[in-house]
């Protein structure tokens, strides 16, 4: 369990990059969670399961469409599979609960997570799966004296794209602005003649899409297993909290803190790498219990 030797700048930068790419996946997932939390005021516990479904669907799709384009097809369609699943759950069941207390909605998302978890087991079984990155993203680039895995650079790029897209969506599109308004005052939005139920459905679906996208993106970097939903949802939940509830930029800040502290944890005490981000979360919450950025409410 020894402490590691001091690292040179090349290793530090390399780990920083790994941390950033991990943060980007977390950001995509947490932005979705935060968005739903902001609009519906309910933490979607099934968010982790949808992430898992995204990863498993990516596996299946990339097997189905073997060859280097398989991954790209999966990247596009796996999140759509997740959207389909969440849409079914929303239209059939969830939308009838919007008038109920938040506790009931929370329980419903928990029940969904139980059901989705077992559905994944049913469809894909309990074995580990893996997906390989497409040809053009395999391997590393040499830069600044060390090698950077191409896939990590890709993840950072995608993360920035998603961040910009989300910013445009929330600030420039009609649906986005309505969602933001509904997060702050849903009664007012209803009084303006907008069907609040549709706003909730749209927000929920967008959030679930992001969960699926995160799952698809993470697929080449980890072993895809049952139980990845449970680990992810608690991390996402904590990230959303330290960022500020419902605040998507907070989700970015939180994800960066989480991902980067974990990478540096790997450098300092590899066996306990996962403890570092949890400790960082505790420190943030002790100092700023309501999160670093303002919550949407």
């Amino acid at each position: 369990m020894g402490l590691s030797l001091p690292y040179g700048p090349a290793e530090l930068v390399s780990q920083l990059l790994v941390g950033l790419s991990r943060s980007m996946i977390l950001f995509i997932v947490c932005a979705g969670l935060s968005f739903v939390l902001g609009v519906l005021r309910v933490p979607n516990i099934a968010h982790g399961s949808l992430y898992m479904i995204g990863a498993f669907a990516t596996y299946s799709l990339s097997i189905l469409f073997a060859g280097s384009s398989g991954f790209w097809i999966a990247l596009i369609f796996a999140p759509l599979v997740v959207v389909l699943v969440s849409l079914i759950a929303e239209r059939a069941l969830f939308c009838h609960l919007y008038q109920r207390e938040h506790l009931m909605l929370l329980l419903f998302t928990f029940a969904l997570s139980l059901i989705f978890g077992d559905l994944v087991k049913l469809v894909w079984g309990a074995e580990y799966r893996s997906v390989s990155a497409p040809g053009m993203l395999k391997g590393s680039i040499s830069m600044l004296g060390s090698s950077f895995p191409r896939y990590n650079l890709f993840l950072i790029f995608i993360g920035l794209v998603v961040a910009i897209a989300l910013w445009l969506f929330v600030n420039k599109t009609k649906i986005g602005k309505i969602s933001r308004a509904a997060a702050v005052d849903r009664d007012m939005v209803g009084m303006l003649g907008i069907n609040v139920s549709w706003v909730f459905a749209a927000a929920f679906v967008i959030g679930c899409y992001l969960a699926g996208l995160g799952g698809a993106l993470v697929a080449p970097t980890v072993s895809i297993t049952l139980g990845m939903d449970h680990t992810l949802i608690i991390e996402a939940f904590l990230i959303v909290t330290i960022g500020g509830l419902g605040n998507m930029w907070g989700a970015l800040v939180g994800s960066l803190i989480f991902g980067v502290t974990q990478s540096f944890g790997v450098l300092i005490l590899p066996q306990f790498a996962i403890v570092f981000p949890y400790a960082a979360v505790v420190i943030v919450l002790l100092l700023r219990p309501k999160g670093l950025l303002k919550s949407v409410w």
Partner: protein
Amino acid sequence: MFKRIVQPKWLGSVVAIFIVLLILPPFLPRFFVYVLALIYVTSLLAMSLNLLVGHGGMFQFHHAVFYGVGAYTVALILTKTSLPMWVGFVAGPMAATIVGLFIGWFCVRLTRLYFGMLQISLGSLIWAIVFRWYSFTGGDDGIHGIRMAPFLSSLNNSYYFILVILVISLIILYLVLKSPFGSTLQAIRDNPDRCAAVGINVRRHQLLAIVIATFFAGMAGVLFVVLERSVFPDLLFWVLSLEIFIMCLLGGWFTFAGPILGAAITVALRTFVGIYTEYWTLILGIILILLIFFLPEGVMGYFLEIFKPQAKEAAERRE
């Protein structure tokens, strides 16, 4: 008009149930004895949570941590040291209480939701450490084959021990709820600002409630080890915290014994559905959804609603 505290009527039936449960083991197959004992352990855990959630109105979102701390403490003492078993049994709840006090001290400064979030983060940190500290806590695998004193070596004896501890704990919890502290706690649940205006140091009362609740959670952890002879990190995982929360909700959290009902239903369901299919989580999820749509007050709440008109009539007739 001012009702008596203990109605002789239902005291009789409670004692009768206890006697029945006490003499059951010789008549039941081993498996059922095991399931009952597991229900007792889980009930104690759920009851300890409900003191804070149902009666205290606190957002105790990661109560499983104290259960796990109690279990791991006794496991570590019994496997890493040669101290007698009783030391472990006492140390378990004490360790849980100390951790509870520590976490609680930070949490009571915050309002409800943030109380819960801070607790989840602190609890998850503890889970992460236990999960990774392979050399000390067994990490992912946990600790197995924990020794017990000879008198606890049989399942039936463990059953009796667990049942007795459960009953004593329930009596204590009942007395606490009916005491002045219990009334004050429930008043804090209903209106903490009014309590402050009436001279009550809300934080200190909440801390005392946390101490009691985490003590019994740790005790439940010890009983778990008595039954299972092993510990693993899942005992500290957020999923278990949410499950016991749901047990309280399911059973009806404004009642005294509701959590016991919730625990019994959940454990029984998991065990017996698990015999027929490995997808019992799916079934549990479906049942939960049915309950959300059809029985929002929890099972016991539902029964109380049905039986309330009759009980009210009976009470009026008596007066």
